């Protein structure tokens, strides 16, 4: 869906779903993952339907990921850091 630019120095290593990736620095987690071909980021807690980043500017809260153990982080607002461990949120809650 998205294509990374050629000739970019991928100097940062992150782990996503137990797999490691080399990515370019100075970009957000959501952008880095989309550049690696990961569009779907989570499942809705209400219906369990798949969701992905929508606005990329901190408005929609659809790009939520578990980052370094902390769930529901806005991945379009957080810059990649060396050694970052990222997980999808796939649980569906029973909802009131």
């Amino acid at each position, binding site marked *: 869906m998205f294509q990374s630019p050629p000739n970019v120095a991928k100097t940062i290593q992150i782990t996503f779903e137990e797999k490691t990736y080399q990515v370019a620095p100075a970009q957000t987690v959501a952008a*880095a993952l989309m550049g690696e071909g990961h*569009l779907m980021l989570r499942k*809705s807690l209400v219906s369990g339907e798949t969701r992905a*980043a929508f606005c990329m500017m901190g*408005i929609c809260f659809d790009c939520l990921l578990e980052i370094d153990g902390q769930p529901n982080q806005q991945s379009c607002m957080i810059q990649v850091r060396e050694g970052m461990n990222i997980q999808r949120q796939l649980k569906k809650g029973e909802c009131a």
Partner: protein
Amino acid sequence: MSLPQYDYVIIGAGPAGMAAAVEARQHGLNVLVLDEQPAVGGQIYRNIEDLEEQRPDEFQKLGADYQEAFELAQRFRASGAEYRPGRSIWQIDPDLTLYHIGQDGGPSETCHAQRILIATGAMERPMPFPGWTLPGVLACTAADVLYKSSGLLPRGEIVLLGSGPLLLLIACRLLDAGVKIAAYLDTNPHLAPFQALPYLPKALRGHEYLRKGIAMLWQMFTSGAKVHLGVTGLEADGEGHLQKVRFQQGSAPWKELPADLLLLHHGVVPNIQITRQLGCEHTWYEKQRYWEPVLDQWGNTSIENVAVAGDSGRVCGSANSVLTGRLAALETARALGKIDLAQQTALAAPLLKKQDQELAIRPFLDTLFPPRHPWLVPKNEETLVCRCEEVRVREIRDAVRLGALSPDRVKPMVRCGMGPCQARMCGLTVSEIIADERQVSPADVGYFRVRSPIKPVTLGQLTGVE
């Protein structure tokens, strides 16, 4: 505990915020700029410093206004304003104490301002239709952000949906970068150009914008993308992610297109989360169907010492944002005794004159690209309106029929607006649906009460527990 004190706290480091900071520093004010993004530029000039430095070829392609914005960013960097990127405001108290957190999960910080400038810009107007939550459906500005900040370009079957200058601009930027656009679905009604004609003479004063607009249209129409005009209905479909879209023009039969990526745009609207939380008075701007804070010519809101500049007031573009930012800073310099009224008036005169020119095209554009049904109130009653809590059009209409006549009454009935986005993505649509069901204007229906926290904050951050 003594709080860090500032004369002027500016929220947002886009064109308005940067210009205000530069102006305020020239008059000797002690300025703090808090911005949610990691770098200056706002959404429009996102990542501008890196672009200029690391991708000079692409930077050149972005045009002359980028050069100007880059120079503004440099002046801002040199201005002596304290700049804190990556900070989100989660509350502002009535005494102008601000609470902000970083994206790193660190402790919340607090400071106090004599005066506050809210320059938080605009956001995409929600454009709900069946399937708009599927992965692969994005706001068109999201594609722009991905390109500017990470150099990512969309690939596959790319479909654009909507109307307005920003959609065209982003489409042309993608075309310039070599992206192939499969289809451009224009939702503008056929009548709009004729309705906009009376505003054309005044708009010609902003002829540079018109020339650009026509050039963009030409580029789009000759790009090889299939252009479909007057689109009135859309459904996105796919297993787990977008695979196809169906669209309708008027009463014609539905047509289907394969799609990997669908980029949406239904105009942008002011981001009013902070002005609402503060309790500033807002009014309904009928022409573009959004809420905006009530402002005077200096950007002052109904709340003392709180002002707004740029597109978080009324959406008028980046050049006007720079001017409103400077005007607001002059008002603050006067209010804090750095200049007198005569100096303020003299310094403001050329800015106001320039603003008059800048705004000349707005009535034309606002009429040429009106937000329209069915994109305001989805026809399909099963369409999700609140993406967080997954509330559908039908449920909101049912709540209205049970007597919930305002967003604050509908909210506890069906949960719309109760999720983490705090109604940013559904607020306008909820107002529109209630108004439609009651056959009144959204102005009579009102908007959600916005409360702290404006952004999620952990219990530990709230209490200062590490």
